[in-house]
């Protein structure tokens, strides 16, 4: 009574059920759901951006002075109170939102692009390129970040633009390190070898195969770097080296309110709160992004 073993089936995979992947012992891998922090963070950021765009259109000017109403505590007319020049703190904070969002973006984006590119090239080609890039990294890292940035801004002159230049000049090193490490790992994987073996030129292997797999770590880092960038911008603003008065940048507002903190704490408190809330939004988004982009293991 022998089993009639079937003739070789032409499409054995056609018999699989459903086509979902094999679950690991950790749990079935179904459709990927968006992580909750990511969704909440994303909505918060959208709200911030809407506020940054719409707010200025709906409110009055942030620079209108009204000395009769200076240093008033929060009330119906001025929900965040007024500062020493009679300007509504709420108005100033909302007008400042777009500034701090810009600061977040421009402190990170140049460093991200420059650093990631250098890191990718260093990791892939090795040799002289890698040596040069890594030695530059070593030099930049030898100095305390804030000290260098302040020094460069002091040389170039205060202002947001110069601050962006200063940060880009120093901030690229983290991204270079991250992408280089990821590239070193990825280029050894068989799919990178297969791409080269198929005759694809280096630039294609780099852009089409390595880059998409190597960049997520840098992106995740960037999402938390944005928060540091905002803090930096506000700190420099507080020191007078970043945004210049009468710009309603939050750091500047805090600085203005510093002398009145005993009489009118709301001047500094509300922009400070705004910074914290924006940072939390980015933080949630970054965490969620990290969860989403976490490398898929079998």
């Amino acid at each position, binding site marked *: 009574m022998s089993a009639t073993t079937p003739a070789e089936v032409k499409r054995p*995979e056609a018999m699989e059920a459903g086509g*979902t*992947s094999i679950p690991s012992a950790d749990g079935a891998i179904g459709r990927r759901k968006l992580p909750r922090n990511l969704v909440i963070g994303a909505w918060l950021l959208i709200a911030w951006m809407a506020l940054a765009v719409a707010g200025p259109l709906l409110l009055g000017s942030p620079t209108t002075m009204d000395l009769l109403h200076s240093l008033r505590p929060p009330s119906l007319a001025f929900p965040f109170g007024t500062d020493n020049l009679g300007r509504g703190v709420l108005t100033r904070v909302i007008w400042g939102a777009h500034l701090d969002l810009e600061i977040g973006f421009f402190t990170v984006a140049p460093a991200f692009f420059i650093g990631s590119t250098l890191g990718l090239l260093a990791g892939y080609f090795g040799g002289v390129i890698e040596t040069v890039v890594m030695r530059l990294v070593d030099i930049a890292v030898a100095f305390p970040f804030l000290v260098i940035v302040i020094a460069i801004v002091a040389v170039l002159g205060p202002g947001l633009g110069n601050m962006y230049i200063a940060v880009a000049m120093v901030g690229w090193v983290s991204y270079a390190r991250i992408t280089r490490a990821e590239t070193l790992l990825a280029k050894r994987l068989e*799919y990178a070898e297969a791409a080269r*073996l*198929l*005759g*694809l030129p280096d630039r294609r292997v780099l852009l*089409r195969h390595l880059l*998409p797999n190597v960049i997520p770590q840098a992106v995740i880092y960037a999402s938390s770097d944005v928060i540091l960038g905002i803090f930096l911008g506000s700190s420099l603003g507080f020191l007078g080296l970043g945004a210049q008065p009468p710009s309603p940048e939050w750091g500047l507002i805090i600085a203005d309110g510093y002398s009145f903190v005993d009489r009118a704490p709301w001047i500094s408190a509300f922009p400070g709160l705004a910074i914290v809330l924006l940072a939390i939004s980015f933080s949630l988004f970054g965490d969620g992004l990290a969860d989403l982009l976490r490398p898929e293991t079998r």
Partner: protein
Amino acid sequence: MPEPVLEIDGVSKHFALRRAPLAALAGKPRRRVQAVADVEFAIGTRECFGLVGESGCGKSTLARLALGLLRPDAGHIRFQGEDIGALSGHGLRALRRGAQMVFQDPYASLNPRMTVGAAIAEPLAWHKVVPPADVKAETRRLLSEVGLGPETASRYPRELSGGQRQRVGIARSLAVRPALLVADEAVSALDVSVRAQVLNLLADLGERRGLSMLFISHDLGVIAYLCARVGVMYLGHLVESGPVAEVFRAPAHPYTRALIGAIPKPDPAAPHPARPLEGEPPSAAAVPEGCPFRTRCPSARSICMTMPPRIDFGAGHWAACHFATEIRNQGAI
């Protein structure tokens, strides 16, 4: 005599190890890892040649040498008659179309961020194997040839099983219509039943497309199934070679005997070899002088300090051992 598809002619390859800066200053020579030492064999058209050995024997390095991914330090590698060491540009592109590889790890051999269809279409488009308008159809055809449905093209590797991924890898390497396929432990990571499916697939593809194959594996059973001839490697040296049936029936090298004896057979009544192979293989950075196997060989004598000659038994069967004839006469394991 038809020209062989691949000729490995006295090929050697070593890798230099990094040394401490002080040692460099002192002028000490770098230590070298002899990955491949004076290997010689040829693969004909439609022939499947098996390469068997354990880790560190140099078979993966040899695979990469054969494909031109590495340059040999000595010897020549000829693909379809042409020395590949001298190739560049146009010639190199032709080599890329002529010889391809299937990798061991189905999980790492596909770009996780590329769909299956994109991965197969890429070499099709790049090498202009078919006109751009036909790329999609050709992709579907290739998928079907390896036993996958057209809907697989829109999937990502993470949605597929190991066996399916391996099939995708095979389809990708077949896209450029190679004459030689190098399979580096291509079925080792697969389940037994899936392994059998992929083995049959490779055999069918080989027949249908007239492919030559260099099949690398540590699994003698798999090599016996697919290959006509086999070479046994140990510490970078090819120690025995010949028709599969011959080599497995009457191995002439002590290492081949030990290897065959060590494999657990799916038969409880099979006798276990009396003397198992003891110890560990020496480091490839310190290959023993003379016969590389002498430190573990049960038959080693003082003459083994000299490099053993190749003893020929006819029909293409030879072994590099001073006592090859006696070993062979011991008969089946």
